[in-house]
């Protein structure tokens, strides 16, 4: 391309640096105002006794030291891990199985995918949470079915060890977007891999473990990270379906942060809690990324 002589202003406006910053300006402003500044604020307040309306008072590490003594907080950590460890693998396995089920090229494939996507479309809503609460409630159809099979006095929400099951199921039920991402990954696995394996006499199970899983591993990594993060911070469903109960059995960390901040107005304490949670999640994500070089497989 020929360079034309431009006036100073024109060349400034059309300079790549200017264009780049004009287009990314929304993100940069948003990042500074709603991510970076809040993070610094949160870090500062985590060292303060702070109630909205009254000035923040510097108290050093007291919030953090108190948190380590706080049995409600450690309980929240334990139940959050329980939720994540059971819920995330369940959701991913489910998403992968359905994605494989729906790879069969039939005319109805698009329709089937749409139907199986419906739970994800609406599953995060308050409406579904309220319905879920009744569906798994002591007089709802699921418990009625369990009772019809001869189990007496069973109740999900009255029992600390069972209350998290409906929440985990509600999360796993929304497998749609993971399913679509898996489906697009499955489509990219070259057909001749399977044909070659079949000629070598590999059965369908060994084909799954030796071809499908390794080829999908980068996508598994992506889905795993996304689901872990949203799992650690689950809020709406627990807040509506179980209200954190019974006896704090589903009082997840996001609920505890919300409660400390907005019910007890201990903003500083809640900020310290957010920071500990952030560090834990960053640590886990980091470990998974570091270890991923051993278990993900890239073709090139």
């Amino acid at each position: 391309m020929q360079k034309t002589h431009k006036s100073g202003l024109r060349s400034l406006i059309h300079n790549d640096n200017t264009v780049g910053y004009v287009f990314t300006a929304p993100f940069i402003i948003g990042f500074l105002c709603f991510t970076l500044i809040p993070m610094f604020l949160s870090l500062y307040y985590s060292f303060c006794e702070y109630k909205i309306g009254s000035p923040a008072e510097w108290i050093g590490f007291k919030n953090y030291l108190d948190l380590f003594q706080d049995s409600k907080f450690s309980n929240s950590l334990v139940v959050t891990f329980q939720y994540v460890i059971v819920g995330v693998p369940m959701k991913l396995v489910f998403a992968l199985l359905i994605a494989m089920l729906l790879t069969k090229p039939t005319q109805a494939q698009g329709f089937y995918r749409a139907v199986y996507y419906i739970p994800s479309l609406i599953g995060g809503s308050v409406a579904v949470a309220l319905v879920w609460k009744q569906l798994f409630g002591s007089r709802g159809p699921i418990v009625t079915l369990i009772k019809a099979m001869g189990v007496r006095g069973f109740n999900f929400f009255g029992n600390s060890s069972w209350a998290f099951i409906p929440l985990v199921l509600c999360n796993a039920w929304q497998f749609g977007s993971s399913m679509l991402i898996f489906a697009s990954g499955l489509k990219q696995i070259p057909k001749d891999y399977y044909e070659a394996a079949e000629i070598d006499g590999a059965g369908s199970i060994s084909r799954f473990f030796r071809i499908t899983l390794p080829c999908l591993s980068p996508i598994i990594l992506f889905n795993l990270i996304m689901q872990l993060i949203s799992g650690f911070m689950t809020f709406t469903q627990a807040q509506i379906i179980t209200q954190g109960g019974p006896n704090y059995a589903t009082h997840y960390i996001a609920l505890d942060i919300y409660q400390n901040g907005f019910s007890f107005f201990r903003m500083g304490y809640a900020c310290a809690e957010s920071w500990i949670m952030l560090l834990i999640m960053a640590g886990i994500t980091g470990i998974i990324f570091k270890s991923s070089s051993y278990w993900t497989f890239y073709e090139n």
Partner: protein
Amino acid sequence: MRTRRIMKDTIYHLFVIAFGLLMIYPVIWMILGSFKMKSEILGSKAPFLPSVWQFSNYPDGWVGAGMYTFATFFKNSFIVSILGTFGTVLSSAMVAYGLARIKFKGRQMWFTLMIMTMLLPGQVLMIPQYIIWNNLNLVGTFIPLVLPKFLGWPFFIYMMMQFIRGLPKELDEAAMIDGCNKYSIFVQIILPLLGPSIITTIVISFYWIWDDYMGPLLYLSKPSLQTVSLAIKGFADSQGTNFGPMFAMSTLSLIPVFLLFLFFNRYLMDGVTAGSVKG
């Protein structure tokens, strides 16, 4: 051989349909429940279909529990969701174009920060963001829910970037020769081609904003400003065991999202998978 294949196909379809019905059973149960009378929704003798169709659950629910009817709540939800979706599409497309196509100083840094923001869960920033809005005296308005959407949403920026990277660069170069500059390329070349990605963003961001509970819970406590998701929760709390109207309003609240999905479904499935991660 041929009959065996037909048998296998039939079993496959039957299984997929049966399992699909199981998956949407909670939805069916909710919709049927919205037409039942109170005594038929729960309990061991609850019938699958309502014995008498109670259409009155809908007007009974619509009236709401307090001073405002669901007309107000739906209006609020539509305002927040439509403005938010519009802002998300516009700003995310701009940022995606900037990061994917323009070579400027600091691009790599902003891209990394964008990915980190995408991985940062919003609940971690819940408290400090609230403090900021509170200091600006904007708690109790739609602004905390709508304004940030005009500043790019990393998940959609990333998705659109993947899409833009798939478009041939020669298009931009040809347009440059034809006299376009980098601003008009965005408007005249990239934006029209982003179609499937934009539709995916519209559908997903609309239903994320529509379904959002935490945002309205923090910022819209005034009854006149509540969105449907918040109002339904309040309605359920006030109704006790009168589940019919609650189910009716729940069903109603899912209809806008559902219609949008039905309308754009074809493009949606393509958009999500085209923009997804490549190994």
